[in-house]
């Protein structure tokens, strides 16, 4: 093959150079940086989830699910921070994993952009929704 045909047939060539859309050339993070975050959030989530599960076992399981006991947990600032960190770490790890799976299924530009945007939106959405629960429960007054 000639050098021209090599260039034309290079599948890894960035095809987005000719588009005019503003979001087409944005690369926030290199893939290696994203995967480092994926590994770190995975390991971090392990520790915080382990503590979260142990909290269910410090008293009889059914008792730990009673409304008053759950609210008391949320009122503890450290536990609330723990829940917030679980939310953030698992949301990032889980949705990044989903992004990886979805990117492998199809490779059109529209699909890739849609997956990247939807995953970030879903991440932010679930973190916001969970944080709302934590903040409201933390401010709950019993009785």
């Amino acid at each position: 093959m000639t050098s021209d045909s090599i260039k034309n047939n290079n599948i890894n060539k960035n095809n987005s150079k000719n588009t005019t859309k503003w979001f087409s050339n944005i690369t926030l993070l290199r893939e290696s940086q994203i995967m480092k975050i994926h590994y770190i959030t995975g390991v971090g989530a392990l520790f915080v989830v382990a503590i979260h599960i142990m909290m269910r076992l410090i008293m009889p399981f059914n008792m730990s699910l009673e409304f008053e006991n759950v609210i008391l947990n949320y009122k503890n600032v450290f536990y609330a921070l723990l829940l917030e960190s679980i939310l953030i770490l698992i949301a990032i790890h889980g949705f990044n994993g989903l992004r990886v799976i979805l990117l492998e299924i199809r490779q059109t530009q529209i699909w890739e952009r849609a997956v990247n945007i939807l995953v970030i939106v879903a991440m932010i959405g679930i973190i916001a929704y969970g944080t709302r629960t934590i903040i409201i429960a933390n401010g709950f007054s019993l009785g």
Partner: protein
Amino acid sequence: MTSAKSAKRINDINNKNDRTNREGLRGWLNPIIYGWERVSYWFQRLTGIFLLVYFIGHVYETSSLVSGPDAWAAMLEMTQTIGGHIFLILVIGASTLHTVNGIRLIFTQSGQGLGKPGRPDYPYDPTSVNNKQRSGLWIAFILAAVAMLYGANVLFSGE
């Protein structure tokens, strides 16, 4: 084929989404014929998707707290059933498997436990697919089974 025809065909293959003879999602579904590492890949994906779905559901169900004790009780009535317990046991197993296998993958995908490059000789056994790193997967399965048994004991005894 003439060179013009072959160039056109190559162009079609490279530029079009030519998925002729690509296995597609079926290629993900054969965990047994290629070895334990393929089984690990399959389970890691399966448990990951399962846990993500559970996570979204869990965040939603715990949000019933903000609506007061009645809403919380209604949610518990829905989830603290036999079916709910079985589902939770599966979640416990999936999370243990995903975690332990994930730690194994962090090590192996960083080149640890795979052996060193050398001079291959007949029968050309690859060093990376060795029992040392595979044992991490077997330990993950065992720990997941133990965790599921413990979880079943806690959930069904109510203690």
